[in-house]
């Protein structure tokens, strides 16, 4: 168990709690207090985490599968096409993606999840395919030469070896998603973005700062948790 991760996890957690307590006690005015109370913050937090969790989980499943698929010799000609599509998706600003999906899927949670999911795909997909492609061909060849089936080469050689790279992609993606989820507030999906956007619209800095700090701490927290998971997944 990595001590540095653990310290960050504990520190970011405690800082989040402290932030909440501070702003609930010093909301900076009656108006800001309408959002800076335990009930509202807890709800925003829950919505935020749920969005990040569902979007990231879906992105991991799809991107890792896709990444595996496009590294199979059979599908290799699709690799650049898939890569390009996902690349283009990434270049669209996240707010535009949200707006786009709002038009077709309506407001709220599921739209936000879908948009965040799309946005979260690329780092994981790219790292999965890169992680697998960068394995020394000699290793794969010697596995094949010893009679390993393709499935075993994937599960016993390629995935374990690519795991650190894949996890790197997942971490990047989750951190991006925590940030992008704040924008989901624009389409009525709630989350910590409610604090930030409302604060901006009525010039109440406590709201903006509270929302910003909490989502930043959430990103740090999740990043470190994932790092810890990566460590424990890696066979020592």
């Amino acid at each position: 168990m990595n001590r540095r991760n653990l310290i960050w996890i504990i520190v970011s957690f405690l800082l989040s709690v402290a932030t909440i307590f501070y702003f609930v006690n010093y909301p900076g005015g009656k108006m800001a207090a309408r959002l800076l109370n335990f009930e509202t913050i807890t709800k925003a937090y829950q919505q935020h985490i749920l969005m990040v969790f569902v979007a990231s989980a879906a992105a991991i499943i799809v991107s890792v599968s896709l990444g595996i698929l496009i590294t199979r010799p059979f599908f290799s000609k699709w690799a650049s096409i898939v890569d390009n599509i996902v690349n283009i998706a990434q270049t669209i600003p996240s707010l535009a993606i949200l707006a786009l999906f709002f038009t077709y899927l309506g407001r709220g949670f599921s739209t936000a999840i879908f948009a965040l999911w799309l946005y979260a795909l690329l780092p994981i997909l790219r790292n999965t395919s890169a992680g697998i492609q960068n394995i020394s061909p000699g290793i794969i060849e010697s596995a094949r030469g010893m009679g390993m089936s393709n499935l075993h080469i994937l599960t016993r050689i390629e995935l374990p070896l690519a795991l650190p790279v894949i996890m790197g992609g997942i971490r990047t993606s989750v951190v991006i998603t925590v940030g992008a989820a704040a924008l989901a507030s624009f389409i009525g999906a709630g989350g910590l973005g409610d604090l930030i956007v409302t604060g901006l619209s009525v010039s109440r800095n406590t709201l903006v700062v509270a929302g910003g700090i909490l989502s930043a701490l959430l990103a740090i927290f999740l990043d470190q948790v994932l790092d810890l998971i990566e460590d424990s997944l890696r066979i020592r």
Partner: protein
Amino acid sequence: MKKSKILVLVISVFLLVGLVAGCSGQEASQSDQEGDTKGTVTVGSKEFTEQLVLGQMTLLALEDAGYEVVDNTGLQGSNVVRGALESGEIDMYWEYTGTGWISYLQNDEPLTDPQECFDAVKAADAENGLVWLDYAPLNNTYTVMMQQEKADALAIKSISDLADYSNQADHEEIVFATDHEFSIRDDGLVGVYEKYGFEFDEVATMDPGITYDALKNGEVQAAMGFATDGRIKSFNLVNLEDDKQFFPVYNAAPVIRQDTLDQSPEIADILAPIAEKLDDATMSNLNYLVDSEHKEPREVAETWLKDNGFIK
């Protein structure tokens, strides 16, 4: 505090510029008078659809009455237009009573009675050499909207009706779409709750541009919007009457320089019947024609003026 200081500074600068420009403006209009019987009127407007339509209406009506007109519509931002009026760069434009009251006259408490607000700004601006002509019923303020069909089915016409319905034990869930600002302000949702004595079952906060879509698609049952937005008509939505006059009023009225009016007092009589005809639904429809049917503001204004017999 800081903001209002900046505002004062900006306005002072405009006034100063206006003073200098005003002199030359007067000279210009004097010389105009010599060459032409009815003189030249420069009409301005802000940059959004409704303002462009109102500006074109004014231009068309004055032209029809035999004035030389200069089109200076589409200026960016309220302060720029107001500054242009004060400096004499433009002679008139349409302003909202609430905007005049809060932004230009620096009042903090909004007024919710149309006549009271109009009288207040008219009186105050008289000292600035500006005249507020008769205001239109169109009130571009916050509104609470529902789908027309739904409102009819539940026999809801006003916010009071909605409050009564929401307070029934077995009512259908009402989710309210609002932008972030309205959701938290005293004179927004919080005030509505207090004034009308009810609460929505759930509030969904979102970008102001998409509350209309959310309501149209039935994802929410009520939404805030701006009363004369074109989408209200095109999405088949309805404004619930603010029967307790909670929302600050933003009636549109032509504001004209005193000197221009002195030279052509007839202008007031030309615009009065037009203003009288412009209510929320009418304006919403005109906005809709521009925004959704992609017609030119001038074309829309001309058609409407002709249909109502204001011009030939």
